[in-house]
Protein backbone atom coordinates (compact mmCIF):
# COMPACT_ATOMS: atom_id res chain seq x y z
CA UNK A 1 0.00 0.00 0.00
CA UNK A 2 1.39 3.39 -1.01
CA UNK A 3 1.25 5.91 1.82
CA UNK A 4 2.69 9.35 2.49
CA UNK A 5 4.79 10.02 5.57
CA UNK A 6 5.06 13.68 6.54
CA UNK A 7 8.53 14.98 7.47
CA UNK A 8 9.34 15.82 11.11
CA UNK A 9 11.81 18.65 10.39
CA UNK A 10 10.97 21.72 12.48
CA UNK A 11 8.32 19.79 14.48
CA UNK A 12 8.97 21.84 17.62
CA UNK A 13 7.89 25.04 15.87
CA UNK A 14 4.48 23.63 14.92
CA UNK A 15 2.76 24.02 18.27
CA UNK A 16 3.35 26.43 21.20
CA UNK A 17 3.21 23.40 23.54
CA UNK A 18 6.32 21.97 21.87
CA UNK A 19 8.10 25.34 22.07
CA UNK A 20 7.55 25.46 25.84
CA UNK A 21 8.79 21.86 26.06
CA UNK A 22 11.96 22.72 24.14
CA UNK A 23 12.47 25.75 26.38
CA UNK A 24 12.19 23.44 29.40
CA UNK A 25 14.82 21.14 27.92
CA UNK A 26 17.09 24.08 27.00
CA UNK A 27 16.81 25.51 30.52
CA UNK A 28 18.87 22.49 31.67
CA UNK A 29 21.96 24.06 30.09
CA UNK A 30 21.67 27.12 32.33
CA UNK A 31 21.00 24.96 35.38
CA UNK A 32 24.04 22.78 34.64
CA UNK A 33 26.33 25.81 34.31
CA UNK A 34 24.86 27.34 37.47
CA UNK A 35 25.38 24.09 39.39
CA UNK A 36 28.98 23.86 38.15
CA UNK A 37 29.66 27.41 39.37
CA UNK A 38 28.29 26.48 42.81
CA UNK A 39 30.37 23.28 42.90
CA UNK A 40 33.41 25.30 41.91
CA UNK A 41 32.73 27.56 44.91
CA UNK A 42 32.46 24.55 47.19
CA UNK A 43 35.79 23.28 45.92
CA UNK A 44 37.34 26.72 46.53
CA UNK A 45 35.97 26.67 50.07
CA UNK A 46 37.89 23.48 50.80
CA UNK A 47 41.08 25.14 49.54
CA UNK A 48 41.06 27.93 52.08
CA UNK A 49 39.54 31.30 52.86
CA UNK A 50 41.33 33.47 50.32
CA UNK A 51 40.55 31.05 47.50
CA UNK A 52 36.91 31.24 48.48
CA UNK A 53 37.07 35.05 48.64
CA UNK A 54 38.51 34.98 45.10
CA UNK A 55 35.54 32.92 43.96
CA UNK A 56 33.13 35.36 45.64
CA UNK A 57 34.85 38.22 43.86
CA UNK A 58 34.56 36.44 40.51
CA UNK A 59 30.81 36.27 41.08
CA UNK A 60 30.66 40.06 41.29
CA UNK A 61 32.11 40.61 37.80
CA UNK A 62 29.74 42.01 35.12
CA UNK A 63 30.02 38.78 33.08
CA UNK A 64 29.00 36.67 36.06
CA UNK A 65 26.14 39.00 36.97
CA UNK A 66 24.94 38.94 33.35
CA UNK A 67 24.99 35.12 33.35
CA UNK A 68 23.12 34.87 36.65
CA UNK A 69 20.54 37.42 35.49
CA UNK A 70 20.01 35.39 32.31
CA UNK A 71 19.92 32.08 34.17
CA UNK A 72 17.37 33.17 36.80
CA UNK A 73 14.26 33.14 34.54
CA UNK A 74 15.35 29.79 33.06
CA UNK A 75 15.84 28.29 36.53
CA UNK A 76 12.46 29.61 37.70
CA UNK A 77 10.75 28.26 34.58
CA UNK A 78 12.48 24.90 35.00
CA UNK A 79 11.39 24.73 38.65
CA UNK A 80 7.80 25.51 37.65
CA UNK A 81 7.76 22.77 34.97
CA UNK A 82 9.37 20.34 37.43
CA UNK A 83 6.51 20.77 39.88
CA UNK A 84 3.96 20.81 37.08
CA UNK A 85 4.90 17.27 35.98
CA UNK A 86 5.33 16.03 39.56
CA UNK A 87 1.85 14.40 39.75
CA UNK A 88 2.70 12.38 36.64
CA UNK A 89 5.97 11.05 38.01
CA UNK A 90 4.81 10.06 41.51
CA UNK A 91 3.45 6.59 42.27
CA UNK A 92 -0.34 6.20 42.50
CA UNK A 93 -2.04 8.45 45.01
CA UNK A 94 -5.56 9.80 45.44
CA UNK A 95 -4.25 13.33 46.11
CA UNK A 96 -5.52 15.64 43.34
CA UNK A 97 -2.79 16.72 40.91
CA UNK A 98 -3.39 20.41 41.68
CA UNK A 99 -2.70 19.84 45.39
CA UNK A 100 0.61 18.08 44.62
CA UNK A 101 1.72 20.90 42.29
CA UNK A 102 0.64 23.64 44.72
CA UNK A 103 2.34 21.96 47.73
CA UNK A 104 5.58 21.51 45.79
CA UNK A 105 5.68 25.12 44.67
CA UNK A 106 4.71 26.44 48.12
CA UNK A 107 7.40 24.33 49.83
CA UNK A 108 9.99 25.52 47.31
CA UNK A 109 9.04 29.21 47.74
CA UNK A 110 9.08 28.91 51.55
CA UNK A 111 12.49 27.16 51.61
CA UNK A 112 13.97 29.74 49.20
CA UNK A 113 12.55 32.61 51.27
CA UNK A 114 13.89 31.07 54.52
CA UNK A 115 17.34 30.67 53.00
CA UNK A 116 17.26 34.21 51.65
CA UNK A 117 16.27 35.62 55.04
CA UNK A 118 18.91 33.51 56.82
CA UNK A 119 21.69 34.71 54.54
CA UNK A 120 20.63 38.28 53.86
CA UNK A 121 18.87 39.30 57.04
CA UNK A 122 20.69 37.43 59.78
CA UNK A 123 24.02 37.41 57.98
CA UNK A 124 24.60 33.69 58.52
CA UNK A 125 27.01 34.09 55.61
CA UNK A 126 29.52 35.99 57.74
CA UNK A 127 29.45 33.65 60.76
CA UNK A 128 32.94 32.43 61.65
Amino acid at each position, binding site marked *: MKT*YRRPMAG*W*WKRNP*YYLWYMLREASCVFITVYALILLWGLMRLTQGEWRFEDWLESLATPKSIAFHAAALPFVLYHAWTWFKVMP*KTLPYSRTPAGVIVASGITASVLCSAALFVAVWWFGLWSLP
Partner: protein
Amino acid sequence: MSRTIAIEVLRYGPETDAAPRWQRYDVPFTDEMSVLEGLQYIKDHLDGSLTFRWSCRMAICGSCGALVNGTPKLSCETFLRDYFPGPLRIEALSHFPIVRDLAIDQGDFLKKLEAVKPYLINPDVPAGNTFVQTPEEMDRYYQYSQCINCLLCYAACPQYGLNEKFTGPAALALLHRYNADSRDAGKAQRMEVVNAEDGVWGCTLVGYCSEVCPKGVDPARAVNQNKIESTKDYFLRFLKK
Protein backbone atom coordinates in the same frame (compact mmCIF):
# COMPACT_ATOMS: atom_id res chain seq x y z
CA MET B 1 -29.34 31.10 10.10
CA SER B 2 -26.30 29.76 8.34
CA ARG B 3 -22.91 31.36 7.81
CA THR B 4 -20.08 30.23 5.55
CA ILE B 5 -16.67 29.09 6.73
CA ALA B 6 -13.58 28.37 4.66
CA ILE B 7 -12.30 24.83 5.30
CA GLU B 8 -8.93 23.78 3.92
CA VAL B 9 -8.33 20.05 3.85
CA LEU B 10 -4.98 18.36 3.30
CA ARG B 11 -5.72 16.05 0.37
CA TYR B 12 -3.63 13.09 -0.67
CA GLY B 13 -4.47 10.52 -3.32
CA PRO B 14 -1.86 7.77 -3.65
CA GLU B 15 -2.63 7.33 -7.37
CA THR B 16 -2.43 11.01 -8.32
CA ASP B 17 -0.32 12.89 -5.75
CA ALA B 18 3.41 12.71 -5.04
CA ALA B 19 2.80 14.79 -1.89
CA PRO B 20 -0.30 16.08 -0.06
CA ARG B 21 -1.87 19.40 -1.12
CA TRP B 22 -4.33 21.82 0.50
CA GLN B 23 -7.77 22.15 -1.02
CA ARG B 24 -10.24 24.85 -0.01
CA TYR B 25 -14.00 24.49 0.35
CA ASP B 26 -16.54 27.13 1.38
CA VAL B 27 -18.99 25.41 3.67
CA PRO B 28 -22.30 26.87 4.89
CA PHE B 29 -22.84 25.92 8.51
CA THR B 30 -25.13 26.42 11.48
CA ASP B 31 -24.05 26.89 15.11
CA GLU B 32 -24.61 23.27 16.12
CA MET B 33 -22.53 21.80 13.26
CA SER B 34 -19.35 19.90 14.14
CA VAL B 35 -16.18 19.83 12.05
CA LEU B 36 -17.14 16.25 11.12
CA GLU B 37 -20.49 17.52 9.80
CA GLY B 38 -18.56 20.12 7.82
CA LEU B 39 -16.56 17.31 6.20
CA GLN B 40 -19.78 15.38 5.55
CA TYR B 41 -21.25 18.48 3.89
CA ILE B 42 -18.21 18.65 1.59
CA LYS B 43 -18.53 14.96 0.70
CA ASP B 44 -22.29 15.15 0.09
CA HIS B 45 -22.46 18.48 -1.76
CA LEU B 46 -19.05 19.69 -2.95
CA ASP B 47 -16.58 16.85 -3.51
CA GLY B 48 -17.51 13.19 -3.21
CA SER B 49 -13.88 12.10 -3.44
CA LEU B 50 -12.97 13.44 0.04
CA THR B 51 -11.99 10.52 2.28
CA PHE B 52 -12.29 10.49 6.09
CA ARG B 53 -13.27 8.02 8.81
CA TRP B 54 -16.17 8.40 11.21
CA SER B 55 -18.77 6.29 12.91
CA CYS B 56 -20.51 7.23 16.17
CA ARG B 57 -20.60 11.09 16.02
CA MET B 58 -20.53 11.17 19.83
CA ALA B 59 -16.86 10.91 20.87
CA ILE B 60 -16.86 7.24 21.77
CA CYS B 61 -15.75 5.31 18.66
CA GLY B 62 -12.46 7.16 18.22
CA SER B 63 -12.58 7.09 14.40
CA CYS B 64 -12.73 10.77 13.42
CA GLY B 65 -9.49 12.15 14.88
CA ALA B 66 -7.75 14.82 12.80
CA LEU B 67 -5.50 17.83 13.22
CA VAL B 68 -7.80 20.85 13.44
CA ASN B 69 -5.68 23.97 12.98
CA GLY B 70 -2.69 21.87 14.03
CA THR B 71 -4.26 20.48 17.22
CA PRO B 72 -5.26 16.80 17.49
CA LYS B 73 -9.06 16.70 17.98
CA LEU B 74 -12.04 14.42 17.51
CA SER B 75 -13.80 16.19 14.64
CA CYS B 76 -17.22 15.13 15.96
CA GLU B 77 -16.86 17.12 19.19
CA THR B 78 -15.15 20.16 17.66
CA PHE B 79 -17.48 22.88 16.40
CA LEU B 80 -17.22 24.97 13.26
CA ARG B 81 -18.60 28.04 15.10
CA ASP B 82 -15.41 28.21 17.18
CA TYR B 83 -13.31 28.66 14.03
CA PHE B 84 -15.49 31.16 12.13
CA PRO B 85 -14.67 32.76 9.68
CA GLY B 86 -11.75 30.43 9.03
CA PRO B 87 -9.85 29.34 7.18
CA LEU B 88 -10.03 26.19 9.25
CA ARG B 89 -7.28 23.71 8.35
CA ILE B 90 -7.97 19.99 8.68
CA GLU B 91 -5.19 17.47 8.27
CA ALA B 92 -4.75 13.75 8.92
CA LEU B 93 -3.39 12.90 12.40
CA SER B 94 0.30 13.68 12.49
CA HIS B 95 3.06 11.04 12.83
CA PHE B 96 1.06 8.41 10.94
CA PRO B 97 1.41 7.54 7.24
CA ILE B 98 -1.49 8.98 5.20
CA VAL B 99 -3.39 6.35 3.23
CA ARG B 100 -5.76 8.84 1.57
CA ASP B 101 -6.80 12.37 2.61
CA LEU B 102 -7.65 12.19 6.33
CA ALA B 103 -7.39 8.39 6.60
CA ILE B 104 -4.19 7.21 8.27
CA ASP B 105 -2.61 3.77 8.50
CA GLN B 106 -3.06 2.65 12.15
CA GLY B 107 -1.39 -0.73 11.56
CA ASP B 108 1.64 0.15 13.66
CA PHE B 109 -0.51 1.05 16.68
CA LEU B 110 -2.58 -2.13 16.38
CA LYS B 111 0.59 -4.24 16.55
CA LYS B 112 1.68 -2.34 19.68
CA LEU B 113 -1.75 -2.71 21.24
CA GLU B 114 -1.52 -6.47 20.72
CA ALA B 115 1.97 -6.54 22.24
CA VAL B 116 0.83 -5.05 25.58
CA LYS B 117 -1.74 -7.87 26.01
CA PRO B 118 -4.68 -5.57 26.73
CA TYR B 119 -6.83 -8.10 28.57
CA LEU B 120 -6.98 -9.61 32.05
CA ILE B 121 -4.48 -12.42 32.49
CA ASN B 122 -5.34 -14.51 35.51
CA PRO B 123 -5.44 -18.28 35.59
CA ASP B 124 -6.89 -18.25 39.13
CA VAL B 125 -10.49 -17.23 38.67
CA PRO B 126 -12.18 -17.13 42.10
CA ALA B 127 -15.03 -19.44 43.03
CA GLY B 128 -18.28 -18.19 41.55
CA ASN B 129 -16.34 -16.52 38.73
CA THR B 130 -16.48 -13.17 40.56
CA PHE B 131 -13.58 -10.95 41.50
CA VAL B 132 -14.06 -8.57 44.42
CA GLN B 133 -12.60 -5.09 44.03
CA THR B 134 -12.62 -2.09 46.37
CA PRO B 135 -13.31 1.44 45.06
CA GLU B 136 -9.63 2.30 45.59
CA GLU B 137 -8.47 -0.75 43.64
CA MET B 138 -10.76 0.33 40.83
CA ASP B 139 -9.53 3.93 41.00
CA ARG B 140 -5.99 2.71 40.28
CA TYR B 141 -6.87 1.77 36.70
CA TYR B 142 -10.30 3.26 35.93
CA GLN B 143 -9.26 6.41 34.02
CA TYR B 144 -6.93 4.37 31.78
CA SER B 145 -9.79 2.04 30.87
CA GLN B 146 -11.55 5.04 29.25
CA CYS B 147 -9.14 5.01 26.27
CA ILE B 148 -10.99 4.75 22.93
CA ASN B 149 -7.85 4.18 20.77
CA CYS B 150 -8.49 7.39 18.83
CA LEU B 151 -4.71 7.99 18.48
CA LEU B 152 -4.85 11.73 19.26
CA CYS B 153 -2.10 11.08 21.84
CA TYR B 154 0.18 9.57 19.19
CA ALA B 155 -0.44 12.60 16.97
CA ALA B 156 0.56 14.77 19.96
CA CYS B 157 3.73 12.80 20.78
CA PRO B 158 6.85 14.08 18.99
CA GLN B 159 8.88 11.14 20.33
CA TYR B 160 6.61 8.77 18.40
CA GLY B 161 6.95 10.99 15.32
CA LEU B 162 10.73 10.89 15.60
CA ASN B 163 10.97 7.19 16.45
CA GLU B 164 8.18 4.96 15.22
CA LYS B 165 9.47 2.09 17.35
CA PHE B 166 8.43 3.89 20.56
CA THR B 167 5.48 1.96 22.05
CA GLY B 168 3.72 5.29 22.59
CA PRO B 169 1.15 6.79 24.95
CA ALA B 170 -2.11 4.86 24.41
CA ALA B 171 -0.54 1.39 24.26
CA LEU B 172 1.48 2.10 27.42
CA ALA B 173 -1.57 3.59 29.17
CA LEU B 174 -3.55 0.44 28.32
CA LEU B 175 -0.65 -1.70 29.47
CA HIS B 176 -0.80 0.15 32.79
CA ARG B 177 -4.60 -0.19 32.87
CA TYR B 178 -4.18 -4.00 33.15
CA ASN B 179 -1.03 -4.01 35.29
CA ALA B 180 -2.74 -1.72 37.81
CA ASP B 181 -5.85 -3.92 37.97
CA SER B 182 -6.03 -6.01 41.15
CA ARG B 183 -7.72 -8.82 39.17
CA ASP B 184 -4.77 -9.16 36.81
CA ALA B 185 -1.72 -11.39 37.22
CA GLY B 186 -0.01 -10.72 33.87
CA LYS B 187 2.38 -7.96 34.95
CA ALA B 188 5.53 -10.05 34.51
CA GLN B 189 4.59 -10.72 30.87
CA ARG B 190 4.05 -7.01 30.18
CA MET B 191 7.20 -5.75 31.92
CA GLU B 192 9.20 -6.82 28.86
CA VAL B 193 7.43 -4.11 26.85
CA VAL B 194 7.78 -1.55 29.67
CA ASN B 195 11.52 -2.16 30.14
CA ALA B 196 12.46 -2.18 26.45
CA GLU B 197 14.51 0.65 24.94
CA ASP B 198 11.36 1.69 23.07
CA GLY B 199 9.09 1.13 26.07
CA VAL B 200 8.58 3.76 28.78
CA TRP B 201 12.16 5.04 28.36
CA GLY B 202 11.28 6.38 24.90
CA CYS B 203 9.17 9.05 26.66
CA THR B 204 10.72 12.41 27.60
CA LEU B 205 7.57 13.70 29.31
CA VAL B 206 6.51 16.26 26.77
CA GLY B 207 3.08 15.71 28.33
CA TYR B 208 1.00 16.85 25.34
CA CYS B 209 -0.60 13.37 25.05
CA SER B 210 -2.50 13.95 28.29
CA GLU B 211 -3.57 17.44 27.17
CA VAL B 212 -5.19 16.29 23.94
CA CYS B 213 -6.91 13.13 25.23
CA PRO B 214 -10.66 13.58 24.66
CA LYS B 215 -11.54 11.04 27.38
CA GLY B 216 -9.56 12.46 30.31
CA VAL B 217 -6.97 9.67 30.26
CA ASP B 218 -3.51 10.72 31.48
CA PRO B 219 -1.10 8.57 29.40
CA ALA B 220 1.92 10.61 30.51
CA ARG B 221 1.15 9.60 34.08
CA ALA B 222 0.83 5.91 33.17
CA VAL B 223 4.13 6.01 31.28
CA ASN B 224 6.02 7.84 34.01
CA GLN B 225 4.66 5.68 36.83
CA ASN B 226 6.01 2.76 34.86
CA LYS B 227 9.48 4.32 34.75
CA ILE B 228 9.46 3.74 38.53
CA GLU B 229 8.20 0.18 37.98
CA SER B 230 10.89 -0.42 35.37
CA THR B 231 13.62 0.92 37.67
CA LYS B 232 12.39 -1.28 40.52
CA ASP B 233 12.25 -4.25 38.17
CA TYR B 234 15.86 -3.61 37.12
CA PHE B 235 17.38 -3.25 40.60
CA LEU B 236 15.25 -5.79 42.44
CA ARG B 237 16.41 -8.59 40.13
CA PHE B 238 19.82 -8.35 41.83
CA LEU B 239 18.15 -8.99 45.19
CA LYS B 240 16.10 -11.88 43.82
CA LYS B 241 19.21 -13.78 42.71
